[in-house]
């Protein structure tokens, strides 16, 4: 049985084709989120990769901020449940999931059977989210993907104390104007995100093993800063950004099977 999961986020769309709820047959990621035309492209990509057409798909579940606007799905679940399911699949021993996406950050607790037992999310503010990193990368005129490796070269991370994205922007500009090396500024930015998300995690309660999903999981600077802040190992995997779509495909398999 083939099931499809699609995660329509604020900045990207991810899609996963699953066989029998156990094997990832194809996956895609399109740099276009809610409101853009990334959904069709993401779905088409997994169909081509897997050599299937939509008629072969038993069930499709959408998740992410755009989940309700897309009419092509048979069902939808919140990105909370989707990430819980996806991360449990990728790392069955995970009991805490930290997901930092384009416009939200969430910390999800999983019980021993991998079910979501609770969660906290960021408040109505972009601090501590992928958007914060996008803005900072824009000021530094570097790609957001380069932030992790740049942070690794830091010798003395700058102190970015503002939690507000707009004020932090001014702070970063001041640091650069004062001659602070770029890697130190980048490390300070990563630490700032980690501090914000760690506060959320402590509020929810951190139980090992801790797994990080979402696009920001690729940023080693933030992941390592989270490890330092929380005093635990924070694992991730190359598929971390697909966790939501994977969870949606797993949910689709479950729905199609009952």
């Amino acid at each position: 049985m083939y099931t499809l999961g699609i995660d329509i986020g604020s900045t990207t769309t991810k899609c996963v084709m699953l066989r029998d709820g156990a094997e990832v047959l194809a996956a895609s990621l399109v740099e276009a989120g809610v409101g853009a035309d990334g959904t069709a492209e993401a779905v088409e990509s997994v169909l081509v990769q897997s050599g299937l057409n939509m008629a072969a798909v038993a069930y499709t579940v959408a998740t992410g901020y755009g989940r309700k606007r897309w009419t092509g799905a048979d069902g939808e679940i919140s990105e909370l449940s989707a990430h819980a399911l996806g991360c449990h699949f990728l790392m069955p021993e995970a009991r805490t999931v930290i997901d930092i996406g384009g416009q939200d950050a969430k910390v999800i607790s999983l019980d021993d059977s991998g079910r979501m037992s609770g969660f906290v999310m960021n408040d109505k503010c972009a601090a501590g989210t992928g958007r914060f990193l996008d803005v900072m990368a824009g000021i530094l005129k570097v790609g957001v993907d380069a932030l992790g490796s740049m942070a690794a070269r830091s010798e003395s991370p700058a102190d970015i104390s503002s939690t507000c994205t707009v004020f932090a922007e001014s702070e970063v500009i001041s640091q650069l104007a004062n001659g602070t090396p770029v890697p130190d500024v980048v490390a300070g930015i990563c630490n700032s995100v980690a501090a914000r998300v760690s506060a959320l995690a402590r509020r929810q309660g951190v139980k090992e093993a801790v797994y990080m999903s979402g696009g920001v999981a690729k940023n080693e600077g933030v992941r390592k800063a989270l490890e330092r802040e929380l005093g635990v190992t924070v694992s991730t995997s190359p598929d971390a950004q697909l966790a939501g779509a994977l969870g949606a495909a797993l949910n689709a398999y479950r729905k199609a099977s009952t």
Partner: protein
Amino acid sequence: MAEEKKKPRTPPDPNSAKYKLNQIAQKAYTDVQEAKARGEKVGWISSNFPVEIPETLGLYVCYPENQAAGIAARGGGVRMCEAAESEGYSNDICAYARVSLAYARLGSAPEQDMPLPDYVLCCNNICNCMIKWYENLAKELNIPMIMIDIPFNPDDEVSDAELAYVKGQFLAAIEQLEEITGRKWTEERFREVMANSCRTSRAWLEATAMARYTPSPFNGFDLLNHMAVMVTARGKPEAADAMETLLKEYQANHEKGESTFRAEEKYRIMFEGIACWPWLRVTSTGMKSRGINMVTTIYADAFGFIYDDFDGMIRAYCKVPNAINLEVARDKRIKLCKDNSVEGLLVHVNRSCKLWSGFMSEMSRQIGRECDIPVVSFDGDQADARNFSEAQYDTRVQGLTEIMEARKEAAV
């Protein structure tokens, strides 16, 4: 999604609780307007100021908190908040205060008018922002302010010292009001008001407690509307009559297996915090569409006062939910959760109310642990529509639903 059971709209029955309660809520404003037109001195009063004092003296008073909620629910909150902000008030201040301070300056609002006051009656048992808000009203309008200070109580009971401290202020407030308005306090009239207030409160608390039945005979959002009468008119006999009618209707609903919750009641939750008035329909629909009935909230029960004499009344006002310590406040909520078979807790992190939102982080954690229920929070505001995101709310409520659903499945 739970399927909504549509019912044809029928004209309101004048003997129904809804009709009676709406009439009383509207009359609360028209009575004051008429008194003002007659040349009587009218006041503005905070929601947990002892209403028995103006009621016994035969004074007409308006409630700025209710007015602000009404203005916000009808879409005028942001306009009024911005008017206050243009006067220099920070947007960090309570939005009820901003709406009210703007109204005092503007003198009208199409969503809900009320006459400007000749005096203000302030009690800080609900919050301390109230003091500065009322001080500014008094200064802006050049009118007297009568203040009753009921301090936050770190102890579990109301001590004799606290009783004496607050009683002195009650007596002084009565004297001040007699002097300002020329009215006289009589014990006989006080006993009548006390009897009405207790009768109204008893019926109200009994009605809200009917949520213990599954399904609940009412939609919890009804309580948010009916509360207006508890705040403004609990000392009046017509309020007692209306609340007793409400109780009878809920009892009848229970006996017939009916409810004012127009969907299948799949989940039962407690809602914590003041309603998100500018987004009431969105917050209500987000729950109802998923079969979630908000069966209980401390916010509604906060306005039921039962006591036997003057000292008992003072003790009751010293025990309102925002004036008691975390452990006592927590235990009251735990009792509500357990009595009403609550399966989840939804917390409104209300940007306007720093006090309430501040203590809820820890309190909700303790409630969740003690009752073994998931706790989810969302950002919003009681009157400033700018502090709410519909998409964020929807995701959080859906997440809560999915947890409750998974727990039900696991229990089977």
